[in-house]
């Protein structure tokens, strides 16, 4: 039964997920509820009182009275006719603004892609050289992990300070020439290139470790030929993930365009979300969805092109190389974690809300991190912010765990929603939620949770598949054990513990996503001490009081280092689990000490 029905299920699930997404976008005006007419009344007719009559008139004008379905239908009809609607705020057509903003964003992304490609190439070169010289090292991910660890909004802020304000090499704001693109492109390209390089060099090492490479060497294949063959073998495995990284750039672009005041799609959407200009947001989301579909299609096509006809015959999966999981690699994350705990502990003892100090007071003994623009103690704000951010993150992670397990146990039907959630950047989800319900801490949490369950669901699916493949589960139907009991008595207990561990490892990452929303003003509002918000407040004073940026930024950097360290540890654990379930381990690449490893070939009967 496997082949045919599985394919149908997956395809149906994907189509349904896309349709659901379009429907969601189309219904946003209705979903935004009663807030919409106030927004418009305030924006367009500031002289009118918000009387029931006036509000009803606005509702009638927008067609909000006709109910969700007619509203959606009239919107989608307009989209097909090339009419993206009229802005609620400016009462002008949306399309021209979106098109020009999109062209700016696409240009920026092209620059970012170039930067990412250079970085990824630099990171992959050692993997190829090692492979050709027959050196088998575990992937050395320290550099790429460091590059990957910084979220775009933080990197953008840091590069702005360093490149535009201290060094004065590049203009800080605007979009007037190529020199304006350098810093934003680096902000987007460094993390993306680091991640792509990390994924690709791992795959290349795994490719070079395969047996056929030895066979080809014996056959006299030269280095160029060998490298080309290994790349062709290795890249298809990581292309889907590279596609996700590229789609993720759209989320990062929102933050980067805000920091550098670039008139791109991201900034337009951010503005639309804060002003509740739903039609603009709708059009922008549609454009981004098209962009994501394009990227997804292109990477899938590239993947099929690389694999070639062999795709029909079920090629062997590429074994993953061991990630560095030893103590040395965990030392840095551990140190960062301890430092973070010290800062938070010290900050919690202090008062974050009262303005007891001079505005932007410099750091000193009594005020270790200085004061912000309202004269509040920055150490206290960072410390209290950790509790808020991490506490929310914990709730989000637990919600994701529940959703992930529920979805992951039915992996085929969930493919579509899973892919959409996996591809959707949290920032875009945050834009939608903020536009619908106004920016708030709850909204940010819901937005992050809406897109963060996907990895847990995927992991559940993998673990459940592994558990179901165990001989002692396979035999259960013969013993009269029904499906429900197999699921709850045998499969669920087997997957629960590793998933809980995985969920906890995602905590810092989720906290960073929440901070990114806070930074963009889509999360908690003043005077809540929230890391992203504190950073956003400080960035306006960066020239006069760098510490206003330095305090929250260093907390975020520490959290990033912890996040990447934990993610690496989780990744390693997952690979080991898969290997123990019977994936073919390659001699010499298995993560065992050398002494045990040399027994491995002899031990293979």
């Amino acid at each position: 039964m496997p082949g045919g029905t599985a394919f149908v299920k997956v395809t149906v699930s994907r189509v349904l997920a896309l349709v659901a997404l379009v429907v969601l976008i189309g219904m946003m005006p209705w979903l935004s509820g009663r807030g919409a007419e106030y927004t418009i009344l305030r924006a367009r007719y500031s002289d009118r009182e918000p009387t029931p009559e006036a509000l009803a008139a606005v509702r009638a004008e927008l067609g909000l009275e006709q109910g969700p379905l007619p509203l959606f239908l009239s919107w989608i009809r307009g989209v097909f006719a090339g009419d993206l609607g009229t802005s609620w705020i400016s009462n002008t057509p949306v399309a021209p603004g979106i098109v020009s903003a999109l062209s700016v964003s696409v240009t920026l992304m092209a620059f970012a892609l170039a930067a990412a490609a250079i970085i990824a190439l630099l990171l992959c070169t050692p993997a190829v050289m090692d492979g050709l010289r027959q050196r088998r090292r575990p992937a050395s991910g320290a550099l790429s992990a460091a590059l990957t660890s910084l979220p775009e909004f933080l990197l953008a802020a840091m590069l702005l300070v360093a490149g535009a304000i201290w060094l004065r090499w590049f203009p800080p704001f605007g979009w007037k020439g190529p020199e304006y693109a350098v810093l934003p492109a680096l902000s987007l390209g460094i993390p993306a290139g680091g991640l792509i390089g990390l994924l690709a060099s791992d795959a290349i090492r795994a490719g070079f470790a395969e047996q056929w490479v030895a066979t080809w060497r014996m056959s006299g294949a030269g280095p160029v030929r060998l490298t080309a063959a290994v790349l062709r073998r290795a890249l298809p495995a990581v292309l889907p993930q590279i596609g996700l990284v590229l789609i993720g750039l759209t989320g990062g672009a929102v933050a980067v365009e805000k920091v550098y005041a670039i008139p791109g799609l991201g900034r337009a959407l951010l503005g639309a979300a804060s002003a509740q200009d739903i039609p603009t947001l709708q059009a922008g989301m549609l454009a981004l969805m098209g962009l994501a579909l394009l990227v997804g299609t292109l990477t899938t096509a590239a993947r099929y092109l690389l694999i070639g006809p062999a795709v029909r015959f079920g090629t062997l999966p590429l074994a993953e190389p061991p990630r560095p999981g030893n103590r040395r690699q965990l030392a840095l994350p551990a140190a960062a974690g301890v430092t973070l705990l010290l800062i938070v502990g010290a900050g919690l003892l202090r008062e974050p809300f009262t303005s007891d100090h001079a505005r932007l007071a410099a750091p000193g003994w009594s005020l270790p991190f200085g004061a912000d623009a309202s004269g509040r103690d920055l150490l206290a704000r960072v410390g209290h912010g950790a509790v808020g951010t991490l506490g929310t993150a914990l709730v989000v992670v637990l919600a994701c765990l529940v959703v992930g397990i529920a979805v992951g146990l039915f992996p085929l039907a969930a493919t579509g929603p899973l892919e959409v959630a996996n591809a959707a950047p949290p920032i875009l989800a945050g834009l939608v939620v903020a536009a619908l319900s106004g920016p708030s801490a709850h909204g940010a949490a819901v937005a992050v949770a809406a897109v963060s369950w996907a990895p847990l669901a995927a992991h559940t699916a993998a673990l459940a598949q592994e558990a179901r493949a165990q001989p002692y589960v396979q035999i259960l139907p013969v013993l009269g054990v029904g499906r429900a009991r197999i699921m709850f008595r045998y499969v669920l207990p087997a997957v629960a513990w590793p998933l809980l561990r995985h969920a906890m490892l995602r905590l810092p990452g989720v906290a960073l996503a929440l901070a990114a929303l806070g930074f963009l003003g889509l999360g908690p509002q003043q005077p809540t001490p929230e890391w992203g918000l504190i950073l956003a407040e400080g960035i306006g004073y960066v020239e006069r009081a760098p510490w206003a940026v330095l305090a929250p930024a260093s907390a975020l950097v520490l959290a990033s280092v912890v996040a990447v360290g934990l993610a690496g540890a989780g990744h390693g654990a997952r690979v080991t689990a898969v290997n123990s379930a019977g994936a073919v381990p390659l001699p010499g690449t298995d993560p065992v000490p050398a002494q045990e490893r040399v027994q491995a070939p002899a031990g293979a009967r």
Partner: protein
Amino acid sequence: MSDGGAFSNSDGGGSVSNSGGSNSGGSVTGALAADRVSFAYPAPRFRGGVHGTRHDGTLHNGTLHNVSLHLAPSSSTALVGSSGSGKSTLVRILLALAKPSAGTVALGAREVRPGLARSLRWYRQAVQYIPQNPAGSLDPRMTVSQLLGEPLRQLRVAGNHRALVGEALERVEVPAGLMERRPGELSGGQNQRVAIARALAVQPAYLLADEPVSGLDLPLRDTVLSLLSSLVREEGLGLLLVTHDLGTAARMCGTTSVMAHGRIVEHGPTHRVLDSPGSPEAAALVQASAALHFPPAVPAGAAP
């Protein structure tokens, strides 16, 4: 396929009366039969796992063409064939785990189809299964008594379950003192016995064993086979033994069916299949197991 005569030389006819009384599955008697069963995986398959190739080069992953197999009560039949010949698919269909694209499986007069666990209880109690490397089919987190109790509970077997568990362990010579141990705390041989005891505990009329020893090393292989053959003889069980090894077939079963390319190409008394194979596939099997079994003839040109 009327091979009534072929089953006459199977052992155990007299011993049925010995233990027949203990067969609570006695309500279901009669032959276990697959009648003109066909099976095909939908093409193209997305996963790998190619097992064999037909002589014309096309792939056949356990497809079946019009296969009939008739197992009389208390008889032992071997199902022999090289990998990819369709043996395992046939077993899955006989176990009601896979649905044939054509044909039927029946126990006595009652037809069997894959379905809900509840609707198959009667069948599961009558037909039990011993997988490849039986010990691997024990959940490492459960104790021996939990492992043996699970099918008794799930199949709603009548009687005192604890007593039935004790009885089953006794039959495979596992001390009752090990009831609360987990598989990790038992020896390899004990685990193999526990797995067999689990199949016996529900007092089935038939045992289907799919290459039960192919994953084991020599001494353990011998233990499991001896245990199986004595149980079958003493309890009057019907046995279908799937193997790719004619030696095992000869040792265990009076009748042998040879499968190749998803068809049964030969069926008859084991010694006749061995001595004068009537199909090229059976001949190849005989030759292969001869060449790979001891004592081998020293190849030509080996003389110093």
